[in-house]
């Protein structure tokens, strides 16, 4: 079968609305929607781009960190005297040099730049040493003597539940549980009572890490006047800026953070890291530029990757496959620190409602502290694990109910412009078109359940945020801003705090400005990711940049266009409304020969108004939820994806090969279709890695002989991630149904396409050999084991059997919109929950100023 080629589909159900920001009638767009070479592409392929590790300054010294070799211990003493006396050493720091705690979320200020009293995992940094060369710094690190008093270690959620003490942290909801949540939307038990069938599953998603090619690096430079500048490979310069000011105890106005081009982030560079703070402090102490480049093993210790999550899913269905009620329980293994964990915990439940109708829903969750590197956000954040569970669960339901899995989904799509049971406001939904595209493309109707034994097709869907609705530090300020400076050469300089992490945000920013002003991409000069020079953008996380930066850029460009139009209208003596900005000119639409080159238009406007600069900004609309926890999940708009995967499984060994992936993504509108397809394919690749082999796993030694708890394989050789050989052909469909909230109608693409890939594999394995693998990554031994089980008369399944017995107490009750709810909880006091919708801001620690 020849698969149809990748392509773009204008969603048939809905004509593109004219209301999409920045939009003009479709054929009028000159830059947006046409494939173009990314603006940073040339520099990247020719090696001109300066990554953090490429940066050096005169008199730079090199820093290394001494990391804990114990998984959980009190620090009894630190002796740095020998290290300080070693050749080339210029500075040594310990925890007491930076005692102020920090964390990405105001509610989890539980980290220190260097450990103060205790260490919480193997790899936790304790001492920083700077020397004239990296070798000297490493040698001096070896000379540091640290004495520890070991503590009981906790390696899993189960152990955390069994071991309330010793506490890994002196805060949290209960014992070593960092977070415990119970939310109920509507009369869930009534829903189950109405169900024709109730299906239950327990599933497990192993943790994995981002594995960016670029290892984290930073250079801190002391500047005149008591200022400090930090260059870093970070996705979130704004948050690094805030934390540096806090921990260094300096005014934020004296701290500048510059996000270098990032060689892969995927969520792994959205926290603030110990080495960044320690380098800045070291630069202040020594008065010299300080450079730190982590090695691969240290990147595994920075982690902040996918949480291992155990899930229990119970859903009531009607016999035609509609969900009437669902109860999801999740248990997250958080690792040693909070990181984004509170948000992650909520995210394991938040987006279960945005794809298919789900009138009543209960969600319970715990996040445990364990003595392992902290988990956090990875592409899809913590929605990936429950999406895997839901999509496999639906596949099983479809089989038991005798409904085609594609139809089960198509028949129960959430309607556009819905408010879900948990109060997420959903706008456009291209999911139906996505499903139809991959069903048609893969020949699903003829081939599903019809291929020879060993060959199978699996289908799954997904959805993701286009930017988190709420900022991490709650405030009413814009979440993104763009400043434009127009000069007499016709160059438009765009200033924005966004961070280019390879996803193409620079290109999106340039394209939005160029489109509105009718100039070329080359005419837009970018200055980005510099907290000293650019207005705040919150950073490259939560798939927010295209929408929020795009909206801010459009507003700034439209304001500039209005100014130019006013001046040019006067000069040409035509109404400003008749002027067109295109092809580097401003001209009269009624008489296209009459006009000015763009540079002259700028000059006319400068004559009339003085120097030209405009601004634009964006803040998402307020979401309807008013209960505690409703802050996680809202987004200006949601992207949708559907995937069909074809797999060949060896029914004896369990080895398998993915033969083809068809994936459709509801992008709203592709600002750059080539970049969009690249992101979709990248998501498929990363999803396949998680589905097939990637796992961040740990090893204990026999407890009678050792207290060790170590990362099993912190190396890029033994942490398995797919190579070219494992990457199948991918057919990509872009579904374009412009959303009124998106710039030119665009939605996100950086994260969503990963989500359906993982369950599609599990479902395809079932179609191929008839066994259910209810956990990922799917190892060949699991398939073999399930096949052996089936041959012996068992259920033919591999996966977890039970969910831990946790008392979730009284859930916070929130009546659904259908039940007449107003988004508020009705039993806040009974549930023992504080009022308000904040989830990450309130609680322990000082609330930071915006």
């Amino acid at each position: 079968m020849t698969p149809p080629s990748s392509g773009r589909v204008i969603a048939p159900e809905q004509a593109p609305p004219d209301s999409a920001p920045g939009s003009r009638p479709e054929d009028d767009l000159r830059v947006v929607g046409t494939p173009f070479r990314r603006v940073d592409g040339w520099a990247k392929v020719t090696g001109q781009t300066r990554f953090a590790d490429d940066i050096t300054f005169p008199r730079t010294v090199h820093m290394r960190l001494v990391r804990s070799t114990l998984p959980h211990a009190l620090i009894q003493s630190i002796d740095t005297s020998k290290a300080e006396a070693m050749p080339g050493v210029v500075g040594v720091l310990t925890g007491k040099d930076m005692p102020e705690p920090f964390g990405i979320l105001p509610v989890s200020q539980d980290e220190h730049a260097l450990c103060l009293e205790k260490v919480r995992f193997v790899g936790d940094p304790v001492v920083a040493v700077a020397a004239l060369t990296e070798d000297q710094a490493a040698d001096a690190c070896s000379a540091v003597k640290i004495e520890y008093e070991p503590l009981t270690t906790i390696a899993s959620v189960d152990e955390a539940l069994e071991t309330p003490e010793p506490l890994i942290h002196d805060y949290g909801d209960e014992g070593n549980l960092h977070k415990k949540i119970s939310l109920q939307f509507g009369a869930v038990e009534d829903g189950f009572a109405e169900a024709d069938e109730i299906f239950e599953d327990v599933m497990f998603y192993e943790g994995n890490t981002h594995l960016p090619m670029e290892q984290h690096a930073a250079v801190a430079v002391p500047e005149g006047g008591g200022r400090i500048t930090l260059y870093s490979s970070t996705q979130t310069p704004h948050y690094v800026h805030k934390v540096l000011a806090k921990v260094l105890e300096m005014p934020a106005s004296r701290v500048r953070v510059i996000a270098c081009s990032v060689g892969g982030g995927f969520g792994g560079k959205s926290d603030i890291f110990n080495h960044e703070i320690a380098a800045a402090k070291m630069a202040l102490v020594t008065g010299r530029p300080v450079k730190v480049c982590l090695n691969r093993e240290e990147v595994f210790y920075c982690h902040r990757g996918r949480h291992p999550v155990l899930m229990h899913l119970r859903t009531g269905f009607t016999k035609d496959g509609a969900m009437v009620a669902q109860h999801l329980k999740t248990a997250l293994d958080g690792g040693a620190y909070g990181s984004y964990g509170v948000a992650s915990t909520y995210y394991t439940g938040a987006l279960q409602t945005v794809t298919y109708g789900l009138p009543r829903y209960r969600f319970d969750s715990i996040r445990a502290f364990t003595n392992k590197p902290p988990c956090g956000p990875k592409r899809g954040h913590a929605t990936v694990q429950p999406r895997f569970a839901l999509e496999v669960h639906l596949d099983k339901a479809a089989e038991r109910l005798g409904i085609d899995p594609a139809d089960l989904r198509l028949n129960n799509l959430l309607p556009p412009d819905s408010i879900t049971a948990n109060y997420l406001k959903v706008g456009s939904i291209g999911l139906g078109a996505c499903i139809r595209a991959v069903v048609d493309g893969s020949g699903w109707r003829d081939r599903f359940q019809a291929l020879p034994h060993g060959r199978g097709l699996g289908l799954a869907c997904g959805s993701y945020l286009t930017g988190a609705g709420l900022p991490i530090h709650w405030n009413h300020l814009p979440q993104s801003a763009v400043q434009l400076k127009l000069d007499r050469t016709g160059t438009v300089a765009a200033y924005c705090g966004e961070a280019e992490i390879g996803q193409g945000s620079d290109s999106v920013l340039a394209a939005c400005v160029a489109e509105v002003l009718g100039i070329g991409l080359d005419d837009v000069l970018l200055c980005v990711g510099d907290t000293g020079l650019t207005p705040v953008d919150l950073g490259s996380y939560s798939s927010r940049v295209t929408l929020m930066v795009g909206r801010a850029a459009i507003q700034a460009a439209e304001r500039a266009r209005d100014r130019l139009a006013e001046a040019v209208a006067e000069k040409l003596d035509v109404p400003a409304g008749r002027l067109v900005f295109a092809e580097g000119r401003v001209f009269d639409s009624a008489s296209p020969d009459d006009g000015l080159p763009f540079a002259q238009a700028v000059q006319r406007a400068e004559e009339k108004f003085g120097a030209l600069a405009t601004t634009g900004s964006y803040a998402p609309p307020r979401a309807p939820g008013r209960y505690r926890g409703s802050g996680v999940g809202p987004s200006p708009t949601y992207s949708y994806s559907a995937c069909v995967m074809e797999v060949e499984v060896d029914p004896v060994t369990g080895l398998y090969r993915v033969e083809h992936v068809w994936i459709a993504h509801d992008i709203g509108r592709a600002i750059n279709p080539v970049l969009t397809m690249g992101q979709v394919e990248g998501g498929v690749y990363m999803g396949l890695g998680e589905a097939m082999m990637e796992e961040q796993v740990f090893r204990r030694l026999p407890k009678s002989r050792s207290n060790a708890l170590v990362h099993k394989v912190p190396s890029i050789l033994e942490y398995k991630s797919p190579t070219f050989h494992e990457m199948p052909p991918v057919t990509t469909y872009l579904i374009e149904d412009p959303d009124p909230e998106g710039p030119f109608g665009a939605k996100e693409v950086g994260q969503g396409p990963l989500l359906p890939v993982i369950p599609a594999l599990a479902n395809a394995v079932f179609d191929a050999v008839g066994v259910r693998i209810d956990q990922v990554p799917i190892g060949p031994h699991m398939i073999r084991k399930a096949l052996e089980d089936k041959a012996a008369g068992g259920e033919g399944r591999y996966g977890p059997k039970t969910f831990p017995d946790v008392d979730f107490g009284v859930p916070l009750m929130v009546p659904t919109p259908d039940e007449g709810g107003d988004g508020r909880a009705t039993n806040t006091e009974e549930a023992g929950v504080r009022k308000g919708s904040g989830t990450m801001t309130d609680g322990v620690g000082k609330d930071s100023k915006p």
Partner: protein
Amino acid sequence: MMRLPVFRLHQPESLADAMALVASSDGETRLVAGGTDLWPNMKRRHQSADVVVSLKRVAKLSGIRGEVGEEVRIGAMTTLAAVASSPIVRAAYPALARAVESISSPAIRNMATLGGNLCLDTRCTYYNQTEEWRTSIDFCLKEGGSTCWVAPQSPRCWAVSSSDAAPVLCALGARVRLVSPAGEREMSVAELYRDDGIDFLTKQPDEVLTEVVLPPSDGLRMSFWKLRRRGSIDFAVLTAAVAVRRKDDGVVSEAAVWLGAVASAPVRSGAAEAVLVGNSLTAEIIAEAAMATRKVATPLDNTDFTLQWRSKMVVHYVEAALREIAGLERERLVPNHAM
């Protein structure tokens, strides 16, 4: 960045000079060929040296001599890329070409050598780690510690022989030439190894492995199957190398069945060979021979994949390799490499 420790590097241009340097150097002295094993090991500080003598500039140690149907000699410093692309090797010893072509990545094969691959340090997930990591487990028996964490009751080290060339060369009856100031000797490749994760080579420290000698391959049918997670980069967790010579009537007269990456040395299955010899290569005989390898290998939990599953795969991989020789239909999913 992982940094090499300080050491003295010699790059002699003759074998005699190399041996003289090894004999005269103070402190721990090592030979290096391509360096794709030693340098990372030294960066992680689980191998160390005061003096390293590189054989890179000893021109006589590179090259492939001989013809198809004759004895073929491959210099120890011949790169894996050169071995894999050699028309002689591809024609006369296709299983060797496949094995060598499957090793790691093109960049590594351009540096790594056949002799280096034969002398590859044994591997273990408790051992191939940084010094800091190994500090966290208080080191292991192979380097710096007193316990083999793979089998804590065991007095020996269970690190895994991970050379892909070794089991094939064993199956082909190849020999190696070792040269030292005291003289030269030749031994079979099988005799080069000892089933001990630490002391895994019978080569003496002052001996230089200079050449691999392959007997004529006329009438020999051979195959090599390799199990690993990915189609590139990874070391094997199981290899099956088989070679069979048949009489005119199709009855097997000679058979060699060797397994790699399941012990600290290549492992021979005499039982499987005995099933094959005197029989025709029917599906039934092959299945019986494969079953005979079931108890030969005892993989432990010190590589990728679960040990129980790896152990079960031995039979299937031997069977697949033998079926390929016999020209029978492929039943197993073919690994993503070199086939």
